[in-house]
């Protein structure tokens, strides 16, 4: 049962992701990306990572994609990409290289034989995550602090770059 569900979800994920990178209309692509993120969240739940699923929906979908949608609307207008036709040869080249790449990856990965007892870990509880994030031993406090610095820098930088200055000559 759960296997079947996984394959269904995996197929959906691949299809939505393909749509996200393939459809000419950017708005549609962004919506496909949102859909693929939702499917990913579902897979996380299957992997017993509820916290991750939640973060996926709130952070990724709530943050990035909406942000991106706004930019798409702001800069290109709906359906802008129609004016940038992608030739079939370009698509083929891209697809060919990607397929080659994937082939290489899978062949390389195929050399790995998973160890025999293929059990699973117990579900990661939210408590464990919270405790680990702020643990003094083997925790992620430093990474947590660093990411705040990163956010601050990116914010400041993005404002500096995106801001339209007065009296600026184009």
């Amino acid at each position, binding site marked *: 049962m759960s296997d079947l569900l996984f394959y269904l979800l995996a197929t959906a994920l691949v299809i939505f992701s393909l749509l*996200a990178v393939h459809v000419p209309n950017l708005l549609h692509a962004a919506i496909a990306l949102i859909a693929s993120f939702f499917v990913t969240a579902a897979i996380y739940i299957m992997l017993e990572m509820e916290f991750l699923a939640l973060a996926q929906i709130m952070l990724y979908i709530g943050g990035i994609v909406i942000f991106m949608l706004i930019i798409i609307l702001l*800069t290109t207008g709906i359906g802008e990409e129609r004016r940038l036709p992608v030739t079939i040869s370009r698509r083929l080249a891209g697809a060919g290289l*990607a397929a080659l790449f994937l082939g290489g990856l899978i062949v390389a990965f195929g050399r790995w034989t998973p160890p025999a007892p*293929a059990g699973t*870990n117990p579900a990661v509880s939210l408590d464990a995550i919270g405790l680990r994030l702020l643990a003094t031993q083997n925790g992620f406090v430093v990474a947590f602090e660093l990411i705040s610095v990163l956010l601050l820098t990116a914010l400041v*930088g*993005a404002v*500096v*770059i995106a801001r339209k200055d007065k009296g600026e000559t*184009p």
Partner: protein
Amino acid sequence: MTLSHCIVLALILCAIGVYGLLSRRNLIGLLLSVEVMLNGANLNFAAFAHFRATDPVAGAIFPVFVMAVSACEMAVALAIVIALYRGRRQLDVRSLEELRG
């Protein structure tokens, strides 16, 4: 559903992202493709954490950090997109050809 299947799925997402990067012409489309790739990487972490890792919590936390990092990256990227768009009024990746040689 096994670990290998999950990883192959993640690798397929990576290749899809690569396909997008190579074939898209709109710069925002390129950024979308990168997101697909990062999503695949997160899936990888989650899969390893679920099936194999001795320290599954770490694998559950890592993707959250990845999301934050990619949010930063997108914020900066989109700011640059805006700056670029202001100057050129177009976002065709092929128009980026002033710097060459």
